[in-house]
């Protein structure tokens, strides 16, 4: 298990609803028998429609939720053991959807310092960590600003810096771009890719924007709590029919290539970007 950052085996999680007398009224199985491995240093994207259980799965990676059944190991530690709780939360940082609701400090640098403060890092080192994390997401010049005056993309990058300052081995991002405009989305994804490539931090990106997935090493598709597809972006996107059945869109270039192919144009499978499509079309004569 040395190279596995996150490993789930037969993971089950059930949300229970209680009626007024406290009896179990309804059980919803949000995650159903998920088995999954994420290698160290990988960039893994988890895709899925609303209610597919992808956010619930993400919360297991930070021990915010513990499994109803099956096991989840993060960096080789079982998330159900209380003793490992803070180590797990430190090694697998988490970024949430709403940028406003996860920034605690009234000044950008104070917020980035919040995680290290909780871990009991000495003051001098906190300052070093804050500076390098803000630099890593390219937000250093906003360090004295109030988060209220930043754009959505900038706030989300501050949130990422806040996690990076805890020196995690892995970052789990739960739909970090869902509330952002297209520009903010690009900023955030660029920052995340840089962390993965430069700092070699494992990234698990949960999203429903296909454009963000094409850079991933591995894509996992979830539907109704189950993992239904797993593979490289090229493998996944070559199966447009199947993706549509799971109510997922494919990138525009891929869709166009797929439709052209159906109409009889001879194109290779799994075209992801506009450049690749242009290249492939120019090869034809």
């Amino acid at each position, binding site marked *: 298990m040395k190279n596995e950052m996150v490993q789930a085996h037969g993971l089950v999680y059930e949300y229970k609803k209680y009626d007024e007398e406290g009896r179990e009224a309804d059980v919803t199985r949000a995650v159903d028998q998920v088995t999954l491995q994420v290698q160290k240093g990988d960039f893994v994207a988890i895709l899925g429609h609303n209610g597919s259980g992808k956010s619930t799965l993400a919360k297991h990676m*930070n021990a*915010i939720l513990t499994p109803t059944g099956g096991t989840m190991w993060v960096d080789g530690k079982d998330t159900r053991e209380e003793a490992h709780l*803070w180590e797990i*939360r*430190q090694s697998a*940082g*988490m970024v*949430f959807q*709403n940028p*406003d*609701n*996860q*920034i*605690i*400090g*009234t*000044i950008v*640098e*104070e917020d980035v*310092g*919040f*995680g*290290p*403060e*909780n*871990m*009991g*890092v*000495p*003051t001098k080192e*906190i*300052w070093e960590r*804050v500076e390098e994390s803000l630099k890593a997401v390219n937000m250093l010049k906003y360090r004295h600003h109030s*988060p*209220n*005056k930043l754009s959505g993309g900038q706030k989300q990058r501050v949130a990422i810096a*806040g*996690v990076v300052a*805890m020196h995690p081995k892995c970052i789990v991002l739960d739909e970090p771009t869902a509330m952002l405009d297209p520009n903010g989305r690009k900023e955030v994804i660029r920052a995340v890719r840089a962390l993965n490539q430069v700092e070699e931090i494992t990234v698990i990106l949960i999203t429903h924007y296909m454009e963000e997935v094409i850079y991933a090493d591995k894509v996992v598709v979830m539907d109704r709590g189950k993992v239904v597809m797993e593979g490289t972006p090229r493998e996944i996107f070559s199966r447009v029919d199947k993706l549509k059945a799971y109510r997922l869109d494919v990138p525009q270039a891929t869709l166009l290539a797929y439709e052209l192919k159906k109409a009889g144009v001879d194109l290779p499978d799994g075209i992801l970007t506009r450049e690749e499509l242009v290249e492939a079309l120019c090869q034809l004569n």
Partner: protein
Amino acid sequence: MIRDITLGQYYPADSILHKLDPRVKLSATLAFIAALFVAKGWPGYLAATVFLAMVIKLSKVPFSFMVRGLKAIVMILMITVVFNLFLTPGDRILVQIWKLRITDVGLRTAVFMAIRLIYLIVGSSVMTLTTTPNDLTDGLERLMGPLKKMRVPVHEVAMMMSIALRFIPILLEETDKIMKAQIARGADFENGNLMQKAKNLVPLLVPLFISAFRRANDLAMAMEARCYHGGEGRTKMKPLMYVKRDYAAYGAVVLFLAVMITLRIVL
């Protein structure tokens, strides 16, 4: 813009008072208030006036800002003065109108009481005008530290205060948004008597509360995800540390207190 509102009444300026440790300012304010109650007779009040004037001069905050705080207590001030003026018994009656009489002692107490109240407000305004809300929270947390032994949740209260400071502008903005959305759908927040106005606020308050609870839930999760587990074993990014000027300020405050107490004993 609703975004730009400042909380409390911090007045940014570059003065020695702004740079002082918040703990010094908090304890100095307490000492000053105590001194006001120690004072007896003209010399004592004169000393307090000189001290206050010096502090105001050092703070570089315009005098009009200091006086602004007085508006809130005008009523209390009037009542105190009137009661003291007419209802204090004394030897010499200065003025008598029907059954109300003003005695020499009454006049004296009324004037001193007014000075006391005014100085109290101005004195604490100096502190809030020169200290950011965040520093104030930090200073309070450190000063109250010993109370932790008595199981007072000092760290938790300070954390709540600073989170409130962060979220007040966000919630204000949200109120503005909900208000506009409701107005667009025909809600009326301006007309009607007090009862109707209060009733009309319900469609504003319900969504605001729901959203505030949702935010609180999200924030709690985000804080836990970042290893927050209370004040134990926590280090500070910006720890409060006394420097030379803080000790000097403490010295000045002690000196002032000593003068006030001497004046009381001697006279």
